[in-house]
């Protein structure tokens, strides 16, 4: 048999090269299981809720002609804007996310700065002590606070037995409990990027400032803080973005007045079974977070390269 060379066009050769094949494995996975699902969220946010399985109207209607007609409605979005509950939930999430990011930054900075300044032989163990809670279940760490903050909980028992207070404080099921829970849960996310940045800091710059007569506080404010800005930004993004959609903490520690959009989404989806409204809530939250997420991505790429 006469073997004939099959001519493969150049662009096909390029497309099926080993290099592209390697790139395509994780690429296609993420396209299919991370990006594509958002198309479905968008689609269902434009549907109407009905009592059926699945509980929404279909987007395409197959009629006489072989092209389907599109059936979409903006009702879910209009509903979100007409009911003040949703707008308040977004605003309240924003407020809680901003305040808790600032609190986490202040506490996290003090810890990261002290770990970076600690004698070298301590640093390894101190860093591991920061990482350990980061790996421990979120749910368990939030649960741990319930026993402490309850009216008949350990904190109140301790404070009463010392004699600081005589009536138990109501912390559980308030916004204060939510702040405590967020700061506690997200602290490692703030400390790790800050520490990575502070550890690499050129100490001779601080010595130079001190030699030139700069006071320690001013040196900290005008040299240390600006130099650690990339770490501050990375830490703040890592806290702010997920806290905006946080569900577990407001659900377990917050009260009925604690409005957060992640909890609203959960309720709409699991209890009210209004999938179009839950989808619209998610789309708007995503729209609010797209810019911070992109800024975070750019900051990360810069930090690694």
């Amino acid at each position: 048999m006469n073997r004939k060379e099959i001519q493969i066009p150049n662009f096909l050769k390029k497309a099926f090269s080993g290099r592209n094949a390697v790139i395509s494995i994780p690429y296609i996975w993420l396209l299919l299981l991370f990006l594509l699902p958002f198309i479905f969220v968008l689609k269902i946010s434009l549907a109407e809720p009905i009592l059926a399985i699945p509980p929404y109207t279909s987007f395409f209607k197959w009629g006489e002609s072989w092209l389907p007609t599109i059936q979409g409605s903006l009702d879910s979005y209009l509903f979100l804007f007409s009911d003040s509950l949703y707008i308040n939930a977004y605003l309240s999430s924003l407020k809680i996310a901003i305040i808790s990011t600032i609190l986490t930054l202040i506490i996290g900075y003090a810890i990261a700065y002290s770990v970076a300044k600690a004698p070298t032989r301590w640093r390894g163990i101190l860093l591991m002590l920061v990482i350990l809670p980061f790996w421990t279940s979120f749910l368990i760490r939030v649960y741990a606070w319930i026993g402490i903050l309850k009216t008949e909980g350990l904190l109140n028992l301790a404070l009463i037995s010392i004699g600081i207070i005589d009536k138990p404080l109501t912390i559980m099921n308030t916004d204060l409990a939510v702040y405590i829970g967020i700061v506690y849960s997200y602290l490692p996310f703030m400390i790790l990027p800050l520490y990575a940045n502070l550890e690499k800091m050129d100490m001779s710059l601080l010595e130079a400032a001190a030699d030139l007569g700069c006071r320690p506080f001013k040196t900290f404010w005008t040299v240390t803080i600006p130099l650690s800005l990339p770490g501050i930004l990375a830490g703040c993004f890592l806290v702010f973005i997920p806290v905006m959609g946080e569900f577990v903490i407001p659900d377990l520690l917050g009260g009925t007045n604690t409005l957060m959009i992640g909890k609203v989404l959960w309720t709409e989806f699991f209890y009210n079974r209004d999938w179009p409204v839950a989808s619209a809530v998610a789309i708007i939250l995503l729209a609010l977070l797209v810019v911070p997420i992109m800024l975070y991505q750019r900051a990360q790429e810069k930090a690694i390269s």
Partner: protein
Amino acid sequence: MKKFGNFNIFALVVGFSFLYIPIILLILFSFNESRLVTVWGGFSTKWYVELMHNQGIKDAAWVTIKVAFISSTVATALGTIAGLVMTRFGNFRGRTLFSGMIYAPMVMPEVIIGLSILLMFVALSINRGVFTITLAHITFSMCYVAVVIQSRMSSYDDSINEAALDLGCTPFHTFRLITLPIIMPAVVSGWLLSFTLSLDDLVIASFASGPGSTTLPMKIYSMVRLGVTPEINAVSTILVGLVTLGVIAASIIGRRQKNTN
């Protein structure tokens, strides 16, 4: 620069107390004789014994371990490739989108990821269960692995790879015989990280699961909603213990690697 001073000691003591006291109290009260979580009634391991007889928790634990094992293994393979693509493949078409899809899942609220993946499964009529939870966990865990590999590769000496290629080694063999053994500790810590992420996840699993596929965090969550009990403390203590062992193992592997370099 001022030396490590009183302020630093104060910050570390207060900071670490804040991080650890809740976990220590949680562990302590898992050994409480009394049903009341806040009143000490003497030492007892009866809640652990009770746990062993709780079929619901045992089933959930088994589902969780299965999901965590499979998802972390697949996520480590995919994430390692993704990390190498990010650092060693230069500029390819669609690189920005790729890195966006790597970084976004790490910060994106879990309710959004959970809802979106669930709606896709429903729209495509894929039955929800252990399989769909595993797919969802692979997707977000692989991003963490990719970042771990990426940061390892930033200090990787490229000249070894060039030497291998110059001597006629194929790219695949260069990866298998040179790159992979060198970055192995990062791959292992990526696997451990994915395993604990999967073990801990409540929100995404709640969306992606179907009837009969309850994971341990979902089970714990439904128990917590009914009230604080020493049984939850006991199951939490076991989980915290496992994670602690894992972190210590990972840091020992990391240290050994540093010493051999």
